[in-house]
């Protein structure tokens, strides 16, 4: 008996410590959103991953690694000469440099003989949604293993661009994140780091899960502002928390993250979904607690009814915005379609511009 009590206490204490990490991360992200802290996407990504890793990551080490990559990008950008003569040529060179670093094998000569080389960051097909191991989504995982997914790869691209003082924007698609860039001569174009192509918008819509209204309502394919990008981190934080603690999660914390993120990014579908799912779990738990068989059994209390209604309306709203669930296998087949149907979906102008020396 004593042992059991101790065990529970122990779990409790670990939980307390971990919860503290999450609270710290939450308040830092909140500070960035309400302007009491300056916005840093790099920092936001780090604190999110660090909270999941029980404060075992070093920001200094992370910064050092990013710094090294940034310096490599600067070197590359000095060496490349894209077929581009807009007034923003220097920016385009930096975009191309980050792209090259992340997708190409490069050699850097320090003198005639000695060189060091970089290898491309590859797509990790295994558990690409982080279902088994949430850390698969992390930029820190990408940096150490050189493999990542549609979450960590564009995040790293955005971080490096920011370090090089150029703007890169995240954009959303079903189950997917990619990069949108702008240059004077070509306007907006997409950068797809999972395969190293520059797809046109038709490819993103070709997944078949992008409903027209989702584009009209800026749920997908729109550029994310700085604060919206932080809101994305906030939802990542909440998701990681839920993955970590499962049934033991404090649902109030998740709901708090969702509500704050949605305040700054109201049409963020992952945030809306997480919120609705959380409400659903809370309701289901309440059903179990009250030994109810059907949801309507809880309608006798006004709170129960209104809670259920608000949950319902959230799902309706998500559908109205244009969200349609995309099965995992469909996602993979769509990702690889870009390679199969290059002729149809690749932005040739941008591809040429980046493949030339």
């Amino acid at each position, binding site marked *: 008996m004593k042992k059991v009590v101790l065990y529970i206490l122990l779990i409790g204490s670990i939980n307390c410590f971990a919860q503290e990490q999450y609270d710290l991360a939450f308040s830092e992200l909140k500070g960035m959103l309400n302007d009491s802290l300056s916005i840093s996407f790099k920092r936001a990504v780090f604190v999110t991953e660090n909270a999941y890793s029980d404060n075992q990551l070093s920001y200094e080490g992370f910064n050092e690694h990013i710094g090294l990559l940034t310096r490599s990008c600067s070197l590359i950008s000095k060496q490349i000469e894209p077929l581009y003569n807009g007034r923003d040529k220097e920016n385009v060179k930096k975009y191309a440099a980050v792209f090259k670093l992340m997708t190409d094998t490069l050699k850097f000569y320090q003198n005639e003989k000695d060189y060091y080389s970089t290898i491309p960051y590859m797509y990790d097909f295994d558990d690409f949604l982080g279902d088994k191991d949430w850390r698969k989504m992390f930029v820190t995982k990408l940096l150490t293993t050189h493999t990542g997914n549609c979450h960590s790869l564009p995040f790293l691209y955005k971080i490096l661009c920011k370090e090089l003082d150029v703007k890169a924007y995240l954009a959303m698609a079903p189950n997917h994140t990619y990069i949108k860039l702008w240059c004077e001569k070509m306007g*907006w174009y997409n950068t797809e780091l999972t395969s190293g192509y520059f797809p046109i*918008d038709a490819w993103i819509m070709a997944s078949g899960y992008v*409903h027209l209204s989702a584009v009209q309502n*800026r749920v*997908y394919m729109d550029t994310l502002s700085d604060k919206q990008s932080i809101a994305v981190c906030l939802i990542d934080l909440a998701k990681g928390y839920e993955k970590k603690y499962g049934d033991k999660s404090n649902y109030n914390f998740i709901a708090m993250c969702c509500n704050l993120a949605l305040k700054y990014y109201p049409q963020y579908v992952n945030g809306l979904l997480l919120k609705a799912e959380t409400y659903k779990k809370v309701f289901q738990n309440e059903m179990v607690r009250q030994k109810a068989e059907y949801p309507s059994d809880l309608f006798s209390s006004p709170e129960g009814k209104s809670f259920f209604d608000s949950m319902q309306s959230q799902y309706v709203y998500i559908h109205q915005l244009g969200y349609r669930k995309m099965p995992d296998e469909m996602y993979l087949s769509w990702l690889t379609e870009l390679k199969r149907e290059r002729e149809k979906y690749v932005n040739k102008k941008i591809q040429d511009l980046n493949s030339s020396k």
Partner: protein
Amino acid sequence: MLVTKFMYTSILTLHILTVQGQVPVSVEPKPFQFDVYPDKVVKFNTGQVNNPSASIMATYNIPPAGASSEEQRRYAEKDIRRYDMQIAQKQKLIDDANGALEAVHIDYEFPFSDLPEKNLYFDAFNYLKKVLNGDEPINLEAAVFFVEHAYNPSLNYNEFSKLLGNGANVIGLKMQQDKISPDDNIGKIMTTFRFLSDTLKVYSKSTETTITTYPKTYDFEDFWGRKDYNKMFVSKLMKEGSGQCHSLPLYFLLLCERINADASLAFAPNHSFIKFKDKRGNWHNLELTNAMLTSDHFMVESGYIKAEAIQNRIYLEALTKKQTIVQCLNDLASGYIKKYGYDSFVKACTELAIENDMNSLSAHQINANYYMMLDSYIKYQYEKKGISKEAYQQDEKAKSISDSATGANKFIERLGYTDMPQDVYEAWLKSAQTEANKQQHKKEVKVLGGMIEIK
């Protein structure tokens, strides 16, 4: 399309401008400044004649005292000749000065030739303006006829209206024959769709005859109306039974207006089609050039629809009735440009259009073309008059027009427009016939067919 359109109109308009160059252009009179040429002016001062000194006598050619009458007459004649010459010299100075002023005079607007047949365009404009201001009820049939008649005055409204009525009549009879509930919107739309895409045989009790109608086909020849602008018109489609992506959807809407059905116009790159809503609130696309129900996916497959264009709702969005009238106004301007080139009328059209539909792509395109043309017209004047490049660069008015041209093009780009080549367009239209799209069409026909209410 913008570029090619621009090139084309540039040739057209420059041609028109040279013709118009022979029409006298009224120049604002400029006061002549005497103080510019003081030394020459002093010479006209003929004072001190009463007390002539020798030098004055020489200058003014005064006959010496005691000269014979013959001599005096010669002197006088000489004097008159001298005076005439002075007058002529003076006139030449004025002419030279005026010429110099004329040489630096630049027109910052297109010359406007007031031709009587343009009245048809002004009438159409005034009518559309009234509709947009809400002073006239929306009547698409009248709007479309006004636009087509302005371009082609030989069109006759009674005939136009009669042909349209015949079509609507057949649709009504077909609905009766198929026992479709007369108030069912999907039933009306699907029957209209069949009228356009199928061979129909209906029996008319009033005339005791069987009427047969044939599918309205796609006219592949000159489908953008570049050679013959009449190809764009519903009147041409009704007469010949074939049309293109402009006239077919418009015809569909006119029939819908007659039978009181609810459908909307929508755009894709260089293309227009029909959108309508079913009872469940889902939208459907009718592609009349292929007579198919298509998916949104097919629309974006062309590869020329950017996310920004969808966000700004320039493509794939059902137009409101008012926006459809704005599009008639854009058609009016396009026809006018084909006929007369660019001038202040075009500007008035785009201003009214943009005022009523901020994101009207066609209006912004015409506006951008207008400023690009005006910019090149000003450059042309500078070149023709041999004025230095520096003077052009310092010309504030010219700069603001050139800035307007750049700004208008930037705006179009921000709306999400990209240029789509003609061959890509044709290939895309043909791709509607793939097996997947055919399956999609059959599925939609089945779903919608199931929704039709039967009496």
